[in-house]
């Protein structure tokens, strides 16, 4: 079903203007479809979970707080950000205080222990 620009549904037009505002001019038409799928799926998930939250709090309708709570709980699974700077600095500090290895194994291919490599057979007869 080929849509001309004017025939696009409202949501698709919104996606188009979003892309344009971010400076993206060059994209394949299927990109809009993919965005729409992502958008729809995300909103449905958030709203379903928000409804569960509001029912648990015995409210009659979904509230702003329910939505906020749902989004916060989802944030660790999708759209996750790398850990904040302090966490990384601490991790680095604890890793960097280990001394460097003093010597290498003799000449030849040096690899981790067999259990850590991928060359051992992963099946049992």
């Amino acid at each position, binding site marked *: 079903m080929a849509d001309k620009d004017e025939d696009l549904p409202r949501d698709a037009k919104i996606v188009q203007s979003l892309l344009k505002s971010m400076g993206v001019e060059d994209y394949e038409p299927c990109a809009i479809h993919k965005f729409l799928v992502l958008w729809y799926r995300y909103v449905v998930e958030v709203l379903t979970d928000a409804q569960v939250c509001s029912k648990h709090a015995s409210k009659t309708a979904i509230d702003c707080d329910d939505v906020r709570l749902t989004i916060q709980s989802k944030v660790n699974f999708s759209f996750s950000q790398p850990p904040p700077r302090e966490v990384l600095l601490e*991790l680095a500090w604890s890793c960097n205080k280990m001394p460097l290895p003093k010597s*290498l194994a003799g000449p030849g291919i040096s690899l981790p222990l067999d259990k850590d490599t991928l060359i051992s057979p992963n099946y049992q007869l």
Partner: protein
Amino acid sequence: MDEDQVLGFVTAYLRKKGFTQTEHAFQEELQQNKNTSSANSLVEPDIAKQILSFSKLESGPARFHDGYSRLRSWAYSSLDLYKHELLRVLYPVFIHCFIDLVAKGHIQEARNFFNIFREDHDMLHLRDLQKLEGVLSPSHLQEMEFAHSLRQSKFKIKICEYSYELLLQHLHNTQSTTILGIINEHIDFQVTSGQPSAISDDPEAVTLCGSSQDAANQINQKEMHWGLLEDSLEERLEKSGALLSDSEKGEGEAKEGENEENKKRSIEGGKQGASIKKVKKEKGGSASGKSAKPETTPAAPRVKPELPLPIIQTEVEQSILEDLRNRVQLSSVALPSVSFYTFLNTHNGLSCSSISHDGSLVAGGFSDSSLKVWDMAKLGQQTVNSLSQGENDTAQNEQILGQSGGRRQYTLFQGHSGPVYAASFSPVGDFILSSSADSTIRLWNTKLNANLVCYKGHNYPVWDVQFSPVGHYFASASHDRTARIWSMDRIQPLRIMAGHLSDVDCVQWHANCNYIATGSSDKTVRVWDVQSGECVRIFIGHRSMILSLAMSPDGRYMASGDEDGTIMMWDLSSGSCLMPLVGHTSCVWSLAFSCEGTLLASGSADSTVKLWDVTSSAKLPRSDEKGGTTNRLRSLRTLPTKSTPVSSLRFSRRNLLFAAGALARNG
């Protein structure tokens, strides 16, 4: 002072704050108390004027618009001599007017303001403007790191005395207190005496200073030992006198004799060793025969490796020494030959490429998670064979190029579950590392064609991986804002380098394997010490994310290329920028120094390879040089391709330049 004025202030205040009920009550009581006498208040008329103006100040987003447009028209209409400097002031004022408008909640006016005045700044600051375009509410301002940092730090602008006076005069005359306030708060002028400088000659004309610059300056004071490794193959070759080097090496050789003792020294001024323990006779002979170059900065003393180095096997060593002996000497008059490998029919699937150190193996990482390695030496052999054989020879049929049937010409390595973003060959060429969006790094062996190890440590896509120049160790750069150093025989990283503000896009080892350099999307390049994991240098100056890095073979310089096409040459010991090399019009994907460090090759998305002269780029521009344009002419040659963005470059040990890229469809 008038009773009416006081009433005016109070009413205006209440109205501004939105205390409508209080205002009504106030008006009512006013009516009642009209007849009673009021106390005289002694206030000076000046203060009255100030209070009145303040109450006016609090209202009207239009004053930002007016003030800015007045400043802009004045700057554009000023004398050409001062115009460039005055125009520099416009961008910070524009940004902060916009942010102030948004912070006060006048979204519509902010958007109008932004759209009307953004064209002036699009050229230089497009990316920043795109980021700010999305800021539409005060809460956005809070969350957005970029806006936050803009608020915190001040713009440093270099301006000459005359322009400064002109600016201040104009601002006082037109009484534009808002603009004056913004300039006062957010701009730090560095007033220099003398003539105004020409357009954008100085990359540091407008810099965002503040805590980041100070921190950088502090870090850049640390010591950094950038000398080459002791007992490297090159050194052994020179000692045996087999390599005829030019005078630069001559100086270095003399110092090798002096620095036999293994003491690390600081490199201020490049001090030589105090005692001469051994003077090698061959070196004495070769050093005297050279003519000294007028101004070569002496090399740093050789350093001990921090990491235990792998032992090189004898055959490998022999072949490397052979290569070093047969190396072609390159200079600005002797340009290299280039061999370009073009990937065809990739359908936009090639996400990275890499060439081995001797140029015989080419690897391509694809977005379908596969890594393909072509052995160019074998392919070349096959063509020779099939050409020399007659048609009657059926034994060669299975190796006819292009009609492979069941036989592929490349080795397919499958194992990743995400696009492969970087590939790196070990110096000997028997191992490849590949890093991918699935946050793992995999080690493959080219002789056994097998996946040996999978290194898991990052939790986010790994953008770059590099083997160290001696092999066995490698570094990775990831979206989680860290770079990690690994050893081939450990599945946990040895070191984690954290400190970048945004994801780390590229990583390179220093020639002495004691430091790694990382380039990031926060527009800085950092150099880290492998032993301690600390950052020893921060290089600020790029205007966009850094895509490629290269270290000079003598350990002194570093080149970095960014998304705009600017290449910057940095001096590692002082932490300063030597020269921005402008010429490319699009992203610089790859940089490579020639083996003696005299030439720099850069490959870019604008489908050209450019060769730059390092020795003249490295000289700091003297102030008495006439004509600023001569500083720019460091580009020796531009080699255009038909339509192939260059994704990787490598100088082989014999100084043959290899390049690789995927053929792009036109348009």
